[in-house]
């Protein structure tokens, strides 16, 4: 006999979504100057959630001007210890409203509630709490005796961890004394708009945080605005390149957190059961919509067969479906566009001769979904081994020696993260030294912490978010003081 899971949906009652939202500028919501707006939908059901204003050139001007005024008059001159208390307040309010925010995130993004509830929201609160404490201790952070903020920061947020990536950008910026204009992704604006309400509850002075919803064009207008001092972008390497080109010749500071094609390396002495969980978490966490996802499994030849067999067995137990169901492991793909991209790359894998296996799971009739998929027989030349898929698709390659593992792992223009699975501590540290990646996880994967700097080597971007190193992105260099 088989046991079926009964539905266990998280209540939507904690969430109130307005039928439409304006732009959050200078502490108030207002419609866009042009009156144009767009709809954000629930990717699991394709239902419309709300209509959101689309910021244009005049709105960007107004938001940057508000941020500049707040910087000059209020936030810049405010003692660090007072800024700290605002950030602590925000952290507390996020904790208080975390269930509501988690549900909202899952509705707008499609990620399972167990992830938004147990990963995203705790980290969001922790991020504000951590950075709050820095606000009055910056002179002890190793950036010289009198660290100074940059001014107005333009921050462009991706759709994969909408509120968490907002926290990664807003918290250090405010702690260092900057004001911000935030542009959330067009498919996931709702938690950023909820954050505006958190700023209201915290009595944050008007203009310190401004939120402009819109698509790529809004982002372009924002980063090109002449009165912006700093641009922080998380997203695709392609857009990162174009932002870097745009900023050439200006004195704007830039940090980029871009794509990845991380190797997750399993040695034959690894604790295999733990490694299986780590492989699953590495690539199927958040439907693989993770820039640091362990999308290339490098497994030592001697254990490859065993690992693959156990991996497929484990993937066959994953539950795909309603993101709000507490038992759901795999949620919805964030947009039809992203689904098409994943599909195209997966087809290229088959076309180039790799063998495709997808977990047997029922795909809901509505919404955008992709089953956990594993490719074997992958060569380094295949597109699925080179290009970022940003979906639940794992490419499996094998190796014989540690040197071969290093060579294959580093054979990518990216360098965001890597994973190592072995019981041998000395091997962990040797491998970590050889890998050209900004974050190296040993016997774990996709683990984050506000004290732990995150960011890439090579074409995965530059600058760090989190930790002491993340502060540097929002402070003047010594030469510029």
């Amino acid at each position, binding site marked *: 006999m088989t046991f079926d899971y009964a539905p266990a949906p998280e209540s939507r009652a904690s969430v109130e979504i307005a039928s439409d939202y304006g732009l959050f500028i200078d502490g108030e919501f207002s419609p866009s100057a042009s009156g144009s707006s767009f709809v954000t939908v629930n990717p699991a059901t394709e239902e419309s959630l709300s209509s959101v204003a689309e910021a244009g050139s005049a709105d960007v001007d107004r938001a940057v001007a508000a941020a500049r005024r707040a910087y000059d008059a209020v936030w810049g001159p405010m003692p660090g210890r007072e800024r700290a208390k605002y950030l602590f307040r925000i952290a507390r309010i996020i904790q208080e409203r975390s269930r509501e925010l988690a549900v909202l995130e899952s509705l707008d993004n499609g990620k399972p509630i167990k992830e938004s509830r147990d990963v995203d929201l705790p980290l969001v609160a922790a991020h504000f709490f951590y950075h709050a404490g820095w606000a009055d201790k910056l002179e002890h952070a190793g950036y010289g005796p009198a660290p100074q903020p940059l001014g107005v920061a333009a921050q462009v947020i991706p759709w994969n961890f909408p509120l968490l990536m907002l926290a990664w950008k807003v918290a250090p910026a405010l702690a260092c004394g900057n004001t911000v204009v935030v542009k959330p992704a067009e498919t996931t604006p709702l938690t950023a708009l909820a954050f505006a309400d958190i700023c209201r509850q915290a009595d944050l002075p008007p203009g310190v945080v401004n939120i402009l919803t819109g698509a790529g064009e809004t982002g372009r207008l924002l980063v090109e605005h002449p009165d912006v001092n700093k641009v922080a972008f998380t997203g695709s390497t392609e857009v990162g390149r174009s932002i870097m080109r745009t900023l050439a010749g200006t004195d704007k500071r830039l940090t980029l957190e871009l794509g990845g094609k991380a190797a997750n390396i399993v040695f034959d002495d690894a604790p295999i059961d733990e490694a299986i969980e780590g492989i699953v978490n590495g690539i199927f966490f958040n439907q693989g919509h993770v820039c640091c996802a362990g999308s290339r499994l490098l497994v030592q030849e001697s254990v490859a067969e065993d690992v693959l067999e156990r991996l497929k067995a484990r993937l066959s137990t994953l539950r795909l479906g309603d993101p709000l169901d507490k038992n759901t492991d795999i949620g919805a793909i964030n947009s039809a566009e992203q689904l098409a991209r994943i599909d195209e790359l997966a087809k290229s894998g088959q076309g180039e001769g790799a063998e495709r296996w997808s977990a047997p799971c029922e795909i809901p009739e509505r919404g955008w979904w992709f089953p956990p998929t594993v490719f074997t027989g992958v060569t380094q030349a295949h597109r699925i081994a080179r290009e970022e898929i940003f979906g639940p698709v794992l490419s499996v390659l094998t190796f014989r020696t540690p040197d071969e593992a290093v060579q294959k792992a580093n054979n990518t223009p990216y360098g965001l993260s890597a994973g190592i699975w072995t019981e041998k501590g000395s091997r962990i540290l040797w491998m*970590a030294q050889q890998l050209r990646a900004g974050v190296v*996880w040993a*016997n774990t994967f996709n683990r984050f912490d506000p*004290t*732990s700097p995150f960011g890439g080597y*090579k074409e995965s971007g*530059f600058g760090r978010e989190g930790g*002491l190193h993340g502060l540097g992105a929002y402070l003047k260099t*010594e030469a510029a003081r």
Partner: protein
Amino acid sequence: MTHDRIGVRKTHKLFIGGAFPRSESGRTYEVATATGDFWSNASKASRKDARNAVIAARTGFGKWSAATAYNRGQVLYRIAEVMEDRRAQFIDEVMAGEGVDEAAARQQVDAAIDRWVWYAGWTDKIAQALGTANPVAGPYFNFSIPEPSGVVACVAPQASSLLGLVSVIAPVIASGNSVVAMASTERPIPAITLAEVMATSDVPAGVVNLLTGDPAEILPWLASHADVNAVDLTGVTDRDLAISAEREAAGTIKRVLRPAPEADWNADPGMDRLRTFVEIKTVWHPMGL
């Protein structure tokens, strides 16, 4: 009958992979002293020379980045020692090239030598100054350490032909990067003498590569080269050239240091340059029984 001895002039060449080749293009350009007298025909580096220099720098990077910080410190200190031996020569060349009096030239040369000593002392402190142990909420020893970015292409300052050059290449190699540097176009001679110092200071071949010529011709190739990790535009005086180089650098998301025409090379260098050309690696090491 007596006559004045005729001096033996030196042919000034490039410095690539520890050797002193002429430009593969066979081209040279005339270098004059500050008073306008003929000084030398310097090699005019070509795109091919720049590419060869990048290949040499990539090779040099492997050995240099793997060297211990202590070893790198000794090598940098050795550079200062060998420069000190050639102090008089450097003073003459700075005087001739920059048109300053002897006291001013001496000050520049002494500051350049002392800068190597300063950075020699940095090599084994960068990881301590820029590294952290991070108190993550979980059973992991989490640490962040700086590692060199890789191959760095530099355009050295145009006016300060020796102190400026040393001030841009020393922080790059101190942390374990290798460098392809373009010397001051009109004042390249101290750079070539510095290359001779490099060649006799235990600096592994390819760690420092020096090109003479026109940045407008060479820089675009370095800025777009996929095996260059970072571009230091400090000495670029042409604004359009700097902008196009930064745009080219975006192709492979290179680290870029923008031009610094007003830089005061006698000021305390601080840590900005050291920070620019390192990557921070964070490792999560498990703890448990």
